């Protein structure tokens, strides 16, 4: 075998075990939905055979944002609200890296909301997991923008005042949106399927994951967890097919073509039943890193040439 063939052969043989992606021991609370998200992510990395050194998990601040510490890949646990611009910088500088973002409803939809809107527009190739538990957990129970109206918390002891913000309808309202899905932590199989589809989409893949926080809002999703009929499973040949096993439990299914953005917006508006699956996907939206020609090799001769060409414009030569 030639060296190149050997290299390809080696690459094809390259495989990883779940342990290869397991970092520190998670310190989330017992029953926290983040554990399910972590398990799905590790499985995704293994099944997609992502090289750990070429994979970066970027996060902001909050319970969700601890996730990179529990992966054995590169991780960037940044500052509150700024995971997306950090991830964008990483991707523009190094399009060869697999970039994932873990963010929460406070991190993404409140302090980082401006970046969220613009990240959708940039449509850089990354997978964004919005761990949406409808509450601030790390700072111990304050209302978040996605808390349903009336949510009692330490800052809203008599119930929150405002209608909840919908991350799905907001995302679907921004130009250049290219992938929007919703998953729930309590259906691990569908969570994994949706994350896989998100990873495989080339563009800004936004997955809102409804995630339980037993510590502070233990009852938030209980009615849905206990009544599968209140879940609306989106199915389509171009979307996700619900497995026969799941079909038996989640009989409330809706055929939905992910290319249909208007229908996607209608479905996204439903809080009950909770839609699960791919709401929208458009592989045609250009990625910012492609538009900007990121990742090209740059030579000293190029820099030298460009500098001299510019200096020529401003040079006074001896007469």
């Amino acid at each position: 075998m030639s060296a190149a063939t050997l290299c390809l052969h080696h690459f094809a043989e390259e495989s990883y075990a779940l342990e290869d992606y397991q970092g520190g021991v998670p310190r989330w609370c017992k029953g926290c939905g983040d554990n399910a998200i972590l398990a799905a992510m590790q499985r995704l990395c293994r099944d997609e055979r992502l090289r750990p050194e070429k994979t970066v998990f970027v996060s902001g601040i909050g319970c969700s944002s601890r996730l990179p510490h529990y992966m054995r890949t590169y991780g960037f646990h940044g500052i509150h609200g700024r995971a997306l611009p950090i991830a964008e910088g990483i991707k523009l500088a190094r399009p060869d890296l697999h970039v994932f973002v873990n963010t929460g409803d406070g991190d993404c939809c409140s302090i980082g909301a401006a970046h969220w809107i613009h990240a959708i527009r940039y449509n850089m190739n990354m997978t964004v997991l919005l761990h949406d538990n409808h509450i601030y957990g790390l700072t111990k129970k304050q209302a978040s923008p996605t808390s349903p109206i009336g949510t009692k918390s330490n800052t809203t002891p008599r119930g929150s005042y405002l209608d909840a913000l919908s991350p799905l309808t907001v995302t679907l309202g921004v130009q250049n949106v290219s992938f929007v899905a919703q998953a729930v932590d309590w259906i691990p199989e569908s969570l994994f399927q949706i994350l896989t589809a998100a990873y495989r989409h080339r563009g800004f893949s936004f997955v809102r994951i409804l995630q339980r926080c037993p510590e502070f809002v233990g009852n938030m999703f209980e009615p849905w967890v206990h009544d599968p009929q209140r879940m609306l499973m989106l199915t389509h040949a171009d979307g996700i097919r619900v497995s026969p096993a799941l079909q038996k439990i989640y009989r409330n299914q809706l055929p939905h073509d992910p290319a249909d953005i208007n229908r996607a917006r209608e479905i996204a508006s439903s809080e009950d039943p909770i839609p699960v699956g791919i709401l929208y996907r458009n592989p045609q939206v250009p990625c910012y890193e492609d538009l900007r020609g990121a990742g090209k090799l740059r030579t000293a001769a190029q820099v030298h040439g460009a500098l001299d060409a510019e200096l020529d414009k401003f040079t006074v030569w001896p007469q």
Partner: protein
Amino acid sequence: MNAVTPLPARANAARMGSAATVAKHLQTLDQHVIEIMSDSGEGAQKCGQSFGSIAARTGNGVWTVEIIPAEIQPPARSVAGASGNRIRIGSHQITNGGDEADIAVAFNEQVLLGRVNAGELKPGCIVLLENMWAEHDDAKIAGQYAETRDRLVAEGYRVYEVPMETECRALVPDPRKGKNMFVLGMLCNIYSLDMNLARDQIAFIFGKKDAKVISSNVALLEAGWQWAESNLDFKYRVPAVKATAPQVVINGNTAIALGVLASGMDICAMYPITPATSASHYLSDVFERAGGIVHQAEDEIAACAFAIGASYTGRVAVTITSGPGYSLKQEGLGLAVMAEIPLVVVNVQRGGPSTGQPTKVEQGDLLTVMFGSHGDAPKVVMAPGTIEDCFYSMITARRLAETFNMVVVVLSDASLATAQQPFPRPVFSTEWLAPPVDQNPVPDGAKPYDWDPVTGLSRRFVPGQPNGMHTLTGLAHDRNSRVAYDPEINEQGMRARSMKLATLQKTLTPPPVFGDREGELLVVGWGGTRGAIEEAVARLRGEGHRVSSTHLTFLQPMQPGIGEILRGFRQVITVEGNWADDPNDPLIDESNRRYSALAMLLRARYLVDVDCWTEVRGRPIKPGTVYAELRGRLAHLETSR
């Protein structure tokens, strides 16, 4: 030439006749300051820049400064709307914009008034004033013109009324678009400059346009020259020394942009902000040809975070901003400090606090960049003192950021941003460039924060390196980058980050002293005031005073040897463009006086009783102002011996 209606005789106004020549008084000058101002869009800036370029080609020392109105389209003929250039030319190197102007050229009397009221014109200054307004259909305008002209004459200005509009109309249909080249011709005549150089300059600036455009502008240029030759009774010559090596003439922001390009950085993330944006504009235009990218982020915070993300992956990135943007970036900068991600930040200072004076000059951000971001966040702070420094400091900044895994802040200011000065053309070196991103496997057992016990330095692992996987964090962390709250590790991390500054400091050399190393008075400055301070000091030294100056390019860490320099003088004073309380104010005494930024730092570090003199008038500090202040202090020192 066209007949010009003779103007009423005035004590100080030139008589305009059709005579082909007037008696000339030729004077040789050491230096001169010229201001050209018009309404926005009339081209005074292009005229001024061209004049500066021609003088530079001639071999004169040159410094040009833009006169910029705060609004994009200020009302025509408004006092606040002056747009143009100040050009200082000399028979030697010129390092600053100089004192009050010797000649002012104005396209209307209102823009001129703005400069008169700001005290920017020398008493008795020559004024070349467009006279079309005298005959204006609107009696109010004609009245304003006459009133201003008479006032200027009464105040002793030498007013020459120039029929710019009439002269230009003979050559072009829209004189408003051509007057600037007519004025350029006048100035070439007045300063005895080579018209061939002027024609070349026109060919250069209109090079992309039709040949007709060039020929009509050359005609305007020649008409201006001829008019001045025939009508003005004065002429100057500023001796020039031809350059023996190529020089580039650029402003500070262009120098910063070219420095970014030359440094091998390839990503600049920014958000528009005055007066920094022109650096990013220019970079946007040229960076891609060298494989670089300028990313305009959604806000200042995102620009900082984006640059941090890009830097994290292996190659240092830069973010360019001004004061308000810098304030917004500070949390991100703290993250870069904590996680030890190299980053270059340019802060082109403007007036503050808050929105302050966006287009004006101030040095108010020194303490902010040194101590900003909560907690102990040591960063390297550099301040270019010349246009040339703006270029090279970017190369140095990138390299320091990379070597020390630190944030390096380059503090420029509005006076350097738009000022142009010739300096030796840089000769590219591959050593300026960043090394390729390291993608080698990390050796077993190596730790991402393996702080050297002495220097605090550690090797950085970047994504793509097998075996180097770790999660970096803005939380306190141990050598393995694991979140750690124990007392020992927190102190170790703080110490390591601090030691890097000390390590850098050990590699620096003492700042040079301008003048003797001992004397009565030492002036210490930093940043864009360098030229004005050294000019004032040179003048005083020429008069026999024992005064010297030193200019700091590193503010953090400070260069070694500064204490020894300070102790060589009886009194030390900083000259800065930021606020300091006046000790003569009724409520101010030593227990509450707020010193200027550098004075405070020097007092604290060297325990020397450093005084300060500052100005926050939104304009470059003039050498004459510094001279007068220092002379007063020297007189006091010299008599108190």
